[in-house]
Every structure is written in C-alpha cells, then in structure tokens.
C-alpha cells in the first residue's frame, strides 16, 4: 500500500527516507526558517520519530492516551532500539492519517487492548532504522567503518578513537545518506528500557493541571453548546420554542441539529441554563414502551427460540440428558454506562477551506471522515487534534459528540465546543449490552463434566458498527470467551440469539467478555461444587491441556494462599479467563456485612501477557481493569423505563471509591509466548471471582448482576 503523507510542521526542513523497512524517519532542525513545505513522501510511511539538532527525540504517538499508558510504552519501544537518552524523549499525538492506522484494525483507532501489541515490532524497527542511520552518519563524519561504531544513550560512539557525537550533531549528515538495509532488532536479553518500570511521560502534566483534555480546549471566539436530546432513544423533536432560552444572559443561538436542540452560549453555565429554559415537544417513537420488563420478556423468548450456532463439539444436549448429574442455570447481566470521568465533548471549527476537530477520541480516521462529510471538504482538509482522553473504555470510539460539534460549528459559522453534562453522558450512551444466558451441564458419576451448553441472548454491537461481520445471525463477538470456554469437556454447544432491544449498545471495556467471563467462570464453579470438588483443583484438572490458563491459575492460587485458612467471615473465590490474547486469573477475598453489603478485601491477580513492555503499567492496568469490573459487579445497572434511562449521575449510578478499594496484588508470569493486551483483560474475571467467593462464604449463588446486597 502506498499512501502519500504530507508533513506540514513548520519546523521541518527535510526528510530522510529509510525505505528498507517501509519506514520514514523524519529529521528536522530547530530554528530554521518557518513555512518551508516538505516534499510529499510516499512509500508506506511510519512517521513516528523526529530527531532535533538540539538532541530532542520527538515520538509521534499514533494511539490515544486514555490512561492505559501508550504515550509511555510506545516511546519506550522506539527509544530501546534507537539507544536514545530517555530524558530527551518528548511526545506528540499524531494527526489523523493512514500512516498511523492500527495494523490490527486497518484504520486509526485505539481499542481492543491492541496498541502496544500492534506497535511492538514496527516501533522498534523505526528506532532501529534511525539508529543505524545515525551510526552511518557518524562513520561518514569520522571516516571510520560503521561496524566500529555503536549508539548509546543518545550518542554514537567510536570506541577505538574515543570519539562521541550526540544524535543532534549527526542529523545534518544523516539526511544525506541512503537508507540502511533492514536492521535486526535487539535480543530481548539486551533490553535496557523495554521491560523496565519506566515512569510515565504524562505524569508531570497530570499533577499540575497542565494536561489538556478535550474539555479544556480553548480557541479564539469559541462558543460552548449544550444539547437537549430526546429522552427516549430514537425520539425526534416535534416542535420547540427557544424564546425563553434566548433570554438567558450569555445565550447566543438556539439551533436544531440531528441529535436535538443545541443552545449555543458564551460558556457552559449559560448554555446549561438556556437548555433548562427550552420548551421542546418530542416525538417519542417506537421505543417509548421499552422497559426492563419488556427487555426481560424479549430475552426469555429468545432463550427458547432459534439461535445461531457458534460452537458445536459432539452432542452436548445428548450428553447432558444422559448425565448422572444435570445442572441448569440462567444468568443475567445488565446494560452498563462507561461513565468516563471526562464527560463527552468535542470542539470543532468548520470553515469553507477546511475543518479542525479537537477531540478526546479513540477513532481519528473516523472523526476525519465525519469532518469531511459534514464540512463538505476532502479528508485531507480535516485536521484531527487528539487531546488527552479523560477515560475511554470504548465510549470514545463513538462519534456522536464529534458529529454534534461539527454540526453546531457549521451552523453558527465559528468554532464550537459541545459539552455533555453527566446526566447527558449516562443517559445517551452506547451501553454495554444487557445479556441473558441459559446454561446446562452434565456430570458423570465421578463428577467429571460430559456436556456443556450455553445460549447467549444479547443485542449485537457489530450489527450497528460493522454489519458485514454478522453472518447468518451470528455476531461472533457476542460469544467471545463463551466459544473459547477452555475446559476439557467432550461435548460443547454454544449459540447466540440476537435480541435488539432498541437501546444503543457499544464497546465497553472488555466488551462481551465482560459478561461471558462472569457467566462461564461462575457456571464452572457451580460444576465444581456439584462435583464436590475444590473449585481451584477442579479447574486445574480440566485445564491440563491449556498451559497458559493453568500457569496463571496456579500462580494466582499460590500467591493468594488458596487452601490456607481465612479470617473468620471471609470467603475466597477464583476465576481464570483469556481475553485480548492475555490470560488472567484472579482470586477475590470477600466478606458480607450483616446488612448484606459485600466488601472485597483483596484481589490477587496473575497475568500472562507475553513479553512485557512496562511491568508498572501492566500492574496499573490490572488494578484499573479490576476496579472497573468490580464497580460494575457490585453496583452497575442501567435501568430502562418508558424508553428512557432511569439513572443519571453518580448518586444513582455509583462508582467504587477509596474506602471500597480492595488491595490488588498483581503477579506477572515471565513469558516469551505471544503478546496480549493489558487494558481490558483484568476486567472479565473479577465479577466471577467475587461471586464465587460469596458462594463459598454464604452458599448463595449470584446469577444476576449487579450483586447488590447479599441477604
């Protein structure tokens, strides 16, 4: 693929092309005359690296930093091979450009716990190519063989003559040289940066208020808009009267856009007051009677109807029917909101000659395409400025907030920032799909499982986002983790019945693994108890041929002291699950207060994610994923009544806080196996680990989330 890329940074004066590895390493000199355009570079560029004559190393981060640490881990990959001086590393977020496409997606987007995996080889290659080019430059300057030179800590060294040159001093010569041949990457045993607990590059900016999130963007003549959207999903504006809103001091305009009525003002507060003063009549549409009860009835009917087969080994129904012991269970998981700490927002400026979008987005090329469509310009005229994201969790893969900013800016003829209130954010979401599950299993006389069936009933995200991937009624993502149920059971049947509820659904941290992890790891626990066996040992025996599952399971059990006595009133539960190519086991230790409140005291986590780039960030992501899943398990529920979301803010959609935080201990399996992600895999097992602990303690099996009070 050959994609032209035009660099327009004012301080670029030249590029040097390293064609061999399909890379472009761009060099620039500080202090040169501004305004010089660069030539168009073709040949599949990966323009990730710029080295300045001031020895600065600028790494362009093509993924969105939403807390998961890409803005540190990606530079670590480059710096490792470049032999850079880490203190000189700076970062910049990439513009929307196919050069920065996620190779696992084919577009520029951050999700699926994919960033570090996707960048692992290309970014090291980018660093290695640049290093060899700098070595070649030094060799030429010194008239010595390149093979006698090496790079270390931001310099090239010729030991025999005791010469040393900083990278910046080599830029001018490097620009004149041909590309080196394909450069071999360092042996992992020689890594000095990758694999270390390198401090995050974004921390200093995040402790003094200087980090700019989307909501912080300020441009000249900026208007701020708040939008009134239909309280019922799919509803439309029947009529509205803006006169009272226009009377609010600071309100400038009231306009209709595709999602509702936008009040445009000097700032957020007048816009909010203006919205409260709007008179709007809504046409509620076809979802006006959707409720939790109607959704439950739909799910129940789909549980009995036809379904798309997702896995079919042997004769599971027959095996269960003939079994000495039969188990049957229904599980439920609710809709969930992402509740990013930063409410949705976007700033846009639509002009005749181009469009600027400043957004906390996980989907840059999507934003660019939308900007082009609404702005009536070609995509190359749309500049996407990715800010820091105040949480993503999949919510910012959506573009509803970007579309609003674009429409408002276009309508008012100036820059506009749309800001959502927390209630807007909770009530106008793309929710984690609610789901209903029917499972059966059969055990033989020794307690060994002979058959397992699992019916997943849920709305489909892919039917909206990538409908071409849904074949014969099967959205394979809805059964992720259910199909890969890892236990050695000879007869297995998994199927899926799509249930469109009218409630919008989207990608929520760990997506459908979030419910399948709960269901599969709870039901296998039921099997263990039915067999009269220890749930850890039962799993262990059934995972004999699943070595990576087994390794994390054993490590978590060992570190948690599985089998050792617990303090009075405590229970322990275990779960193991693979998601996003990483393997995670968690042991939860819980107590239940006399009023039924569940407290999780400790979670011991073991992860095998293959080669680790930054263990401190892996640990942080395990804590984060566990808190996210635990919050949902304990409290998370979006309820629907008359086509509307009932909850609206943190008072009725509560979040885990400091006083409820368990001690999380993470143990990383040293691994050279294939690499997995870390942003999401910590989330799926935690609900099951906690519910299994509650069962161990109380004998009460939790089959519907949230857990709420256990009485």
């Amino acid at each position, binding site marked *: 693929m050959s994609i032209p890329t035009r660099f327009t940074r004012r301080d670029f004066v030249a590029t040097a092309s390293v064609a061999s590895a399909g890379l472009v390493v761009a060099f620039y000199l500080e202090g040169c005359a501004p305004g010089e355009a660069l030539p168009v570079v073709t040949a599949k560029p990966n323009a990730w690296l710029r080295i300045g004559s001031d020895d600065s190393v600028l790494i362009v981060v093509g993924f969105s930093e939403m807390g998961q640490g890409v803005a540190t881990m990606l530079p670590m990959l480059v710096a490792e091979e470049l032999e850079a001086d880490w203190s000189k590393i700076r970062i910049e977020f990439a513009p929307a450009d196919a050069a920065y496409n996620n190779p696992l997606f084919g577009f520029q987007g951050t999700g699926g716990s994919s960033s570090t995996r996707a960048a692992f080889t290309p970014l090291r290659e980018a660093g290695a190519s640049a290093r060899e080019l700098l070595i070649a430059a030094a060799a030429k300057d010194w008239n010595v063989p390149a093979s006698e030179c090496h790079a270390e800590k931001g310099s090239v060294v010729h030991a025999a003559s005791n010469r040393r040159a900083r990278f910046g001093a080599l830029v001018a010569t490097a620009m004149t040289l041909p590309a080196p041949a394909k450069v071999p990457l360092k042996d992992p045993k020689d890594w000095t940066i990758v694999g270390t607990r390198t401090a995050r590059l974004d921390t200093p900016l995040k402790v003094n208020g200087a980090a*700019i999130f989307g909501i912080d963007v300020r441009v000249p003549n900026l208007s701020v808009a708040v939008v009134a959207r239909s309280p019922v999903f799919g509803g439309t504006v029947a009529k509205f009267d803006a006169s009272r809103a226009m009377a609010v001091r600071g309100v400038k305009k009231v306009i209709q856009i595709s999602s509702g009525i936008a009040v445009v003002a000097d700032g957020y507060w007048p816009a909010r007051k203006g919205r409260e003063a709007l008179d709007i009549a809504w046409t509620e549409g076809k979802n006006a009677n959707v409720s939790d009860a109607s959704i439950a009835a739909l799910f129940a009917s789909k549980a009995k109807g036809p379904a798309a087969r997702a896995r079919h080994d042997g004769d599971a129904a027959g095996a269960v029917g003939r079994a000495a012991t039969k188990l049957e269970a229904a599980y439920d998981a609710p809709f969930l909101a992402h509740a990013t700490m930063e409410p949705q927002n976007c700033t846009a400026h639509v002009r005749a000659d181009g469009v600027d979008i400043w957004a906390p987005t996980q989907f840059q090329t999507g934003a660019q395409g939308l900007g082009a469509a609404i702005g009536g310009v070609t995509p190359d005229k749309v500049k996407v400025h990715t800010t820091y994201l105040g949480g993503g969790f999949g919510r910012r893969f959506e573009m509803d907030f970007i579309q609003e900013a674009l429409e408002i800016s276009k309508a008012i003829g100036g820059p506009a920032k749309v800001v959502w209130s927390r209630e807007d954010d909770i009530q106008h979401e793309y929710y984690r799909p609610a789901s209903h599950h029917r499972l059966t299993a059969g055990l033989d006389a020794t307690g060994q499982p002979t058959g397992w069936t699992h019916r997943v009933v849920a709305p489909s995200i892919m039917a909206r986002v990538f409908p071409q991937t849904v074949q014969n009624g099967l959205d394979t993502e809805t059964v992720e983790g259910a199909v890969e149920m890892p236990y050695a059971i000879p007869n297995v049947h998994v199927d899926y019945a799509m249930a469109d509820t009218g409630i919008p659904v989207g990608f929520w941290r760990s997506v459908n693994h979030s419910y399948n992890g709960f269901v599969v790891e709870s039901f296998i626990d039921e099997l263990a108890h039915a067999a009269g066996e220890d749930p850890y040992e039962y799993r262990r025996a059934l995972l004999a041929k699943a070595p990576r599952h087994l390794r994390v399971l054993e490590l978590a059990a060992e570190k948690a002291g599985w089998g050792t006595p617990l303090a009075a009133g405590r229970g322990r539960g275990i779960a193991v699950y693979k998601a996003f190519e990483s393997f995670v086991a968690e042991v939860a230790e819980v107590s239940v207060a006399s009023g039924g409140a569940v407290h999780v005291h400790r979670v011991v986590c073991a992860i095998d994610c293959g080669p680790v780039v930054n263990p401190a960030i892996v640990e942080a992501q395990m804590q984060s994923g*566990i808190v996210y899943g635990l919050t949902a398990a304990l409290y998370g529920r979006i309820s629907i009544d008359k086509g509307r979301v009932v909850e609206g803010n943190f008072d009725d959609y509560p979040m885990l806080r*400091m006083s409820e935080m368990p001690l999380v201990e993470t143990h990383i399996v040293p691994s050279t196996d294939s690499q997995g992600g870390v942003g999401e895999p910590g989330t799926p097992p935690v609900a099951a680990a906690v519910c299994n602990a509650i069962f161990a303690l109380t004998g009460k099996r939790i089959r519907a989330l949230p857990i709420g009070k256990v009485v």
Partner: protein
Amino acid sequence: MAPISLQVNGTSHQVDVDDDTPLLWALRDNLGLTGTKFGCGIGACGACTVHVDGVATRSCVTSVAQVGVKKVTTIEGLTSRRERAVQQAWIAEDVPQCGYCQSGQIMAAAALLKENKDPSDADIDAAMTNICRCGTYQAIRAAIHRVARGG
C-alpha cells in the same frame, strides 16, 4: 449586573457572570484555569475540588456568590512546600492513568495533609471520597503515605 470579584491563586479577578454561576465554570470558562475539572455537577465525584480559604470544596456546587471574597486555590496555584510535596509524591508513585480526576484528588489530599500530617488508612478512606474511574486508589493511598513519610 456588576462583575464579581474573585480571589484566585493570590490574584484578584473580575468575572462577568451571574451570581448563581458555579465557581467551577467561572474558573474554567472565564479565567481559563482548566486544571479544575467538571465531572458530575452535583458534588458527587470531586473532580472539581479546589480550596476555598484552605478547605477542600467542590466547586461545581459552590456559586461565585457563595465564594465572595474568600481565597480560592486551584491546582495551578499550589505553591507551598507541603503542597508541592503532594504533587511530587504523585509523581514518585506514578499515580495518574487518564489523569482527569487527579487535580481534584491532589487538592483533596493536600487539604487532608494540612489537617493531618500522618493520616491512617481509615483517615484516607474518610477524606478521599473523590471518584477515580481508572482505579488509581491504591497509588493515591501510597502517595499520601509517602508525603507523610517526608517524600
């Protein structure tokens, strides 16, 4: 309506807003101090925490009229040695993930540590009620203890 005078980070500012405007929005939209964050608008999450006369205060539910002549300190205005020590501890523990709530967390912690130089875990649980959706609580707790130990 006459502009309202606000004392922020040691400087007097005039803001031309209605009396009922939350301090949060005067800081962000009128004074450009965007380090203080909007999270919920009901005082539930603490992302908007600032100090008003030294007391941790949720600025999203505190109007400019209520603030009056009191001294407001935002994350941008932390200057004392003790306040800087909180930020340094946050760096040493590499606390932030997405970072959005951390201004509020640091303001809450700085207020706690001013009153209680060596808070217990129970003291931290009671005082640190701010929400962190990334789940950095363990690191926040460690950072607060680090300050108490003297960095």
